[in-house]
């Protein structure tokens, strides 16, 4: 109890908790779940984009996309490392993902159908991610907070590139504008879902806020995202697919329509449009290449043995 009190005091004072510090089991567990889920999202998120690396429409766009997925692999690595400082191994986290026990962002269970989806992902998905992540640069767990500083810097770069790609489409041919509008239609609602269930359905929010694992509520972040993104859509000359969308002078923000939470929970359950593809791709990558990791281990062991001898 003294330990708990001391812990709560330090967190409330915005001090960083470090790996060797004492922490409540629930804090540790919640962090592992949150950080590994974030790491998995970076890795699974390479798949919808990887789907267009081979079909990027210009050398420049191909290079930008390759650089982006490279960054995402890097983010995945920092985050896995941050989670490992909490005493969970990479293997355990990967197994939890593949067994369906661990989750990843629902957004990556939607398919990338046209090139505009890549632009839309940069603009909307990275935009929503940043909104979620910026506050986490001041999260209470040190390694996580430091990882997020790097992640956020690169993520906002991706968001700008995505928006720039969207501008090119919105200013392009009729076919390009059609792609852009269609992408916005399909990605808008799933992007709003990225902030998680509404506050009144999010039981752990309060504790996570107290522990500084979360620093704003789902609904607060979602509102912020809508308020920033709607004018961007207007600038592009695109229509947000929500007939209830309206500026609310009083609250100084947009009112928007009801989210299809049934869809959200179905996607969380693993019934998203391409969830099977995503999990199959990740499982295949892991299992069919197990021999590579085994060989690397065997070789490293032999090298170590040779050094000792």
């Amino acid at each position: 109890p003294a330990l708990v009190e001391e812990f709560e005091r330090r967190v409330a004072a915005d001090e960083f908790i470090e790996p060797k510090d004492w922490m409540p089991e629930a804090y540790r567990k919640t962090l592992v779940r949150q950080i590994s889920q974030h790491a998995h999202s970076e890795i699974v998120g390479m798949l919808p984009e990887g789907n267009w690396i081979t079909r990027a429409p210009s050398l420049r766009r191909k290079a930008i996309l390759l650089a982006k997925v490279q960054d995402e692999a890097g983010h995945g690595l920092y985050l896995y490392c941050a989670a490992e400082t909490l005493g969970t191994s990479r293997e355990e986290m990967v197994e939890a993902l593949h067994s369906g026990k661990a989750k990843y962002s629902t957004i990556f269970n939607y398919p990338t159908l046209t090139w505009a989806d890549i632009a839309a992902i940069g603009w909307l998905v990275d935009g929503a991610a940043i909104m979620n992540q910026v506050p986490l640069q001041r999260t209470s767990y040190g390694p996580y907070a430091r990882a997020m500083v790097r992640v956020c810097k690169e993520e906002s770069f991706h968001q700008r590139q995505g928006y720039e790609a969207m501008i090119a489409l919105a200013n392009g041919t009729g076919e390009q504008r059609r792609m852009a509008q269609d992408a916005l239609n399909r990605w808008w609602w799933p992007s709003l879902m990225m902030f998680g269930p509404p506050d009144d359905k999010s039981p752990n929010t309060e504790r996570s806020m107290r522990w500084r694992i979360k620093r704003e509520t789902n609904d607060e972040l979602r509102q912020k995202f809508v308020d920033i993104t709607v004018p961007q859509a207007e600038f592009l000359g695109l229509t947000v697919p929500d007939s209830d969308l309206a500026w609310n002078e009083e609250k100084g923000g947009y009112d928007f329509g009801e989210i299809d939470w049934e869809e959200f929970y179905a996607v969380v359950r693993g019934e998203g449009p391409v969830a099977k593809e995503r999990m199959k791709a990740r499982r295949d990558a892991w299992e069919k290449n197990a021999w590579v990791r085994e060989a690397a281990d065997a070789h490293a062991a032999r090298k170590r043995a040779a050094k000792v001898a």
Partner: protein
Amino acid sequence: DQASVDYLLELGDDALILGQRLGEWCGHAPSVEVDLSLANMGLDLIGQATNWLGAAAECLDGKDADALAFHRDVLDFKNCLMVEQPNGDFAQTMARQFLFSTWQHMLLERLTGSSDQQVREIAAKSVKEVAYHRELASDWVIRLGDGTEESARRMADGLDWNWRFIPELFEVTKEREELIERGIAADPREFEDDYRAALANILAEAQLEAPADQRPILGGRRGHHSEHLGHLLAVMQFLPRTYPDAKW
């Protein structure tokens, strides 16, 4: 002149096609670390391709690097056959990278002394990147060759698949002779012995036998490829072919 353009196209197409192949791995590699390094090499190669094809385009009225990358069909691609070979498993990918990057590195080292300023500059920019590709691929050849029984067998198969495309890397045509004499191009025959020795060194460390030589398979430089390239191009060029008027 045509000979210079052809040379720039060869250099650019090699990088472009191998970069494209590496991009196919995205999200499917044995580990996140490997995913990262494959994307990184792919990115380097796409950058190099952009420079070489850009230089080629300057000699061709009204073209740019994208036009060359996305609006030529198989018969006009000049890459060597090795880079268009399918990824296969990770061992086959790394065998291809090892055999190609070792050659490309030796070539670029010489091209940093080219009599052509643009060639010299692009080579100087690329050679450091490729030195790293060579090292990374060599490490994997050793790790897999001297890993488990399965990984050694797979690496041997990967080398065997790509081995028959080595002679093409040292082919020198009459037109090329002239470009070599002018100091623009490098003569790969000058470093063939070094190349073979470098392979032998790594293979020895990897505890692997070199595959047997056989009748060389040539033709890539003249647009006569394997069946793999057409499929690669169908995917790579889809958008610019489908929307010829669009800018992206």
